[in-house]
Structure formats: structure tokens, C-alpha cells
């Protein structure tokens, strides 16, 4: 069984009368890439701030690497790297000087470490550039580079791909995957860019108004994102009646222009084409679809779970 790196039990955080996080239970296991999903104000950053010790909980328990006592957690935070809200660095120093500052702060021996990380994050040729004059994407890369000093076992990243250009997003995504696969670094990250999160996360946590609505592995989510068949026939009404007569409950939705969306259970799509042809219903189109994370999220929202 994999070690639990972060364990939150009934974690609660209030700001005055506003409950930012309400009895949240989250488990992040070693090797996970945990994606936190939720709208603005859902509690993602609050949770990450609690994990990084920037704010204190009002209830519940939080354990980091199995330790929940504040002093032990502080020690264990030395095994982490983080970007929360915006990357923190000194604008009056160069990229190289900022890295050197944090290398000293973290007590990491050997100056070569800095060059290695700058190479990894694509900043090697900008080492002498003033950090105050960086583009948004470059700032994000510098934040990542700082978080990665000292080979952390856990990376805590709040919107890490914000401001990155498309090629930057791909590079950073591949970097995360490589760090996760090769060095078994656990990553917890929040992002509004769900298609991007979908390509990274192995576990998802859906937050809404401070509550954890669902925690689900990427595999289970894939299963749950039942693929569906969208079929366009010449008589959707009659086809719907036929669907109702099929054994078992077939979930479907009649769409405009004689389109019907059939949420597949175990059935193969051939069953639906045969059903039409055997009953002399013409088929104009038959497409097989898979729900994306974005669609799943939106559907869950529509159902009122989020």
C-alpha cells in the first residue's frame, strides 16, 4: 500500500464567518499527481496554503508524510517545493541570484544544482537576466525552478501553468510527468485548464464552496466518463421508443435535428446501428464519444453536485 503523503481529515478553515474549507477529507499518496478541480473560491488555494503552513486550520487534522504535529510538519515541509498563488522571488536580483538565494536558504550543497534545475526548466540561458523584467511565463518557470531546488519529494503547485505559452505548457507538462515517473515525485496541483490537468493527473479532487464533492482516480473517472454514441436518424421519436424497449435501462438524451445521445453501458455501438436498420430507420451519422474531464466537470455541475 502506498504511503499517504498528505492526509486531511475533516480539515476546516474559516475567514471570519466565511467557511473557505469545510470538513475536507483528502488523501494524496506517494507517486500521485493529484489534480484539484473547482471554480474560483472553491477552496483549492486555501487547501494548498494549509498544506504549506501559510495559514492555520480551524478544525480537523492535516498530516504531511504521516506527521500531524506542527513541529514535525514544519520539518517535513523541507521535503516539499511549492508555488502558491504567484511565484515568489526578488525582482531586483537576477534569475541566477534568486536561485542561489534559495539554494542557500534550503541549505543545498553544490552550486551545480542551480544550473541543473535552470536547464530543466528552460532558464539556463537567462541566468543573468533580472527577475524583475521577466514575462509571466518566465516568472512561472522561475517559480517552478525555485520549488524544485533540493529535489523535493512533494511538489505543491497552485496554477503552475498560468501564463505559459503553448510550447511552455507542453514542456512543463512533460517535466512534471518525467519527475513523477523517473523520480517518483508526488505532485498536487490546481489548475483551471482542465484539458491540461487531464493529461497529468492520476487522481482528482473536486471542490465546491469549500467542500470536497468527489475524490476519484483517473482510471475510475475514465470508467465513469462513460463513452456515448451520438446517432442521427431520420425519425428520432420512433428510435427513442425502440431504445426504451431494449433490455436493461438505456440512458439517452434526444437532441435537436433528430440526434440522440446514448450513454453506453456495456453495449457495443453496433447494437444501436442494428436497432435502427432492423426497424427501417435511416442513419445519417453514428459517432462514438468519450467525455472529457471538462465535460464531466460541467455535467457534474449541471447535475448540481458542484
Amino acid at each position, binding site marked *: 500500500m502506498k504511503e499517504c503523503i498528505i492526509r486531511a481529515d475533516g480539515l476546516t478553515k474559516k475567514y471570519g464567518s466565511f467557511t473557505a474549507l469545510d470538513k475536507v477529507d483528502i488523501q494524496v499518496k506517494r507517486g500521485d499527481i493529484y489534480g484539484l478541480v473547482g471554480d474560483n473560491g472553491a477552496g483549492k488555494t486555501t487547501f494548498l496554503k494549509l498544506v504549506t503552513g501559510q495559514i492555520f486550520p480551524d478544525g480537523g487534522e492535516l498530516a504531511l508524510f504521516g506527521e500531524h504535529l506542527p513541529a514535525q510538519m514544519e520539518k517535513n515541509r523541507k521535503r516539499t517545493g511549492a508555488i502558491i498563488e504567484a511565484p515568489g522571488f526578488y525582482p531586483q536580483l537576477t534569475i541566477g*541570484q534568486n536561485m542561489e538565494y534559495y539554494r542557500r536558504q534550503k541549505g543545498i550543497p553544490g552550486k551545480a544544482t542551480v544550473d541543473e534545475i535552470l536547464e530543466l526548466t528552460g532558464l539556463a540561458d537567462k541566468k543573468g537576466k533580472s527577475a524583475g523584467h521577466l514575462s509571466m511565463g518566465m516568472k512561472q518557470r522561475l517559480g517552478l525552478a525555485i520549488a524544485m531546488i533540493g529535489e523535493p519529494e512533494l511538489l505543491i503547485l497552485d496554477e503552475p501553468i498560468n501564463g505559459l505559452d503553448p510550447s511552455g505548457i507542453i514542456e512543463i507538462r512533460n517535466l512534471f510527468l518525467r519527475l513523477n515517473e523517473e523520480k517518483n515525485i508526488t505532485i498536487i496541483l490546481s489548475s483551471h485548464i482542465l484539458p491540461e490537468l487531464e493529461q497529468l493527473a492520476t487522481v482528482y479532487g473536486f471542490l465546491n464552496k469549500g467542500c470536497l464533492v468527489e475524490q476519484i482516480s483517473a482510471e475510475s473517472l475514465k470508467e465513469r466518463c462513460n463513452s456515448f454514441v451520438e446517432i442521427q436518424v431520420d425519425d428520432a421519436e420512433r428510435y427513442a421508443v425502440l431504445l426504451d424497449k431494449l433490455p436493461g435501462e438505456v440512458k439517452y438524451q434526444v437532441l435537436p435535428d433528430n440526434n440522440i445521445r446514448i450513454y453506453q453501458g456495456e453495449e457495443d455501438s453496433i447494437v444501436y446501428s442494428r436497432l435502427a436498420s432492423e426497424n427501417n430507420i435511416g442513419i445519417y451519422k453514428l459517432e462514438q464519444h468519450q467525455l472529457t474531464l471538462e465535460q464531466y466537470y460541467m455535467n457534474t455541475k449541471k447535475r448540481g453536485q458542484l
Partner: protein
Amino acid sequence: MMNYMKSEWYRITHSREIYVITAILCGVTFLLNAVLALVARADKNFPYATVNFSLNMLIGSMPMLFVAGGVIVWRLFADENEIGTLKNAIAYGIPRHHIFMAKCVVSIAVSLLSLVMVAALYAGSACLLLEGPAEEPLKQLFSGIGASLLCAFSAVILAVGLLQYCSKQSSAFGWWVIIIIGVPAALAFAGMKYEIAARISAWLPWNFLRLETVANMSGSRGMWTTPEGLMKCLIAGIAGIVIFTFAGITMCKKQEV
């Protein structure tokens, strides 16, 4: 804590701020002496171009060291909350009170180095450019700086604590001014009527360093030149350091960023 101190030292020595502040202070003090000397050249009867007059300006207002220390801390740490570097240190598991203590040590060390340079240039340029005996005013000046150092350190510690605790720079600045200048001034005023206020007021460095020191054209006599006065400086300084350090640690431990 040592690593944090090392990193801060690295940052400060690789940034322009401390060099700029020190250069400005050196420039102002040198300019002051240079102006006095120039005026004396133009007007042979100008009575103020003396080492005594120049150095008395600081001897009579030693609390300026508090302000200089506060300005240095301000320039070094004021934007930490805004640029997110404090968050990084906390997220990395450095205890808040270690951050506070490390900043205090580094600020005091940097301020002290800056003070040595400014004081050397101030006294040196006065001796070189101005007239009159230098030995006694120099003695008064350096013994005064020595006696006021602990009080100045406590002002620096307070500035560090407030800047770390307050999310807004302006609040930190306001509180510092109130505690270091406002409260002593108010108590001195209230002391005219109430005995208890007068007693407390007499132990506040902003008051006693200015009001109990005589510095004029005929010479100066710092309150630190007497054993009682020196003891008062040291006791008030130590008390300030202890109180502000304790308050800083307590406040920073509860601070959310």
C-alpha cells in the same frame, strides 16, 4: 535559521538597497560638513563651521539612529509580503520565529556596518573640513553612539517584527512611528500633568536621549557620560530588545500569510 541568515546576507549584499541607503547617508553627512566649510570660506565671521557644531547635531539627536535603522529595515524587507518570498520560506518549513530572529540578526549586522561607514565619514569629514577642537566632540559622539546602540537595535527589531506581521507596509510604518515616537511624545506631554506618565516617559529612549542631553555651541554633555545615564541607556535598550523580540516571536508565530 543559519541557512536563512546566510541567504538573507547573500541577497542584501547582492542588492543595491543597502549600498544606496549608505551612500545617501554618507552623502548627506559629507554635504553638511562641506556646506559649513564653504560658507565659512565665504564669510570669515561664520561661527558654525566647527567640528563641535557639526557633531552636536547628531549628539543632540541620537534617536536619529533609530530612524536610520528603521529606514534600513524598511528598504530591506518592506515588500516581502507582496512579492511572496516570505511565503516561500514558510512553505519550505522554516519556522516563522526563526525567520524573524534571522532577519533581526542580519538587519542589526547590516545597519551596524552602514553606521560604521556613515559615522566614520561624518566624523572624518568634520575633522578635515571644519575648525576647532575635535577630541571632545568625537568622544561625545562615539560614546553616545555606543550608548544608544542597544536602543537602536530594539527599534530595528520592532521594525522587523512589524513588517513581518503586518500585511500592509503602511500599517507597519504607522505602528513603528506610534511606538517609537508617538507614545514617548504623548507620555512626555502627559507627564507635565501626571507624575506616573512623567516617570514612564523618562525611561523611553526617544525622550531621554534628546531631552537629557545638552548640545549647543559651547559644547555638549551627553546623558550617557554619567554612570546613571549610561545605565539608563543600557537598561532601556536591553528592555526594548527583550520586549520587542518576545512580542515579535509571539506575533509572528500566529501570523498567516
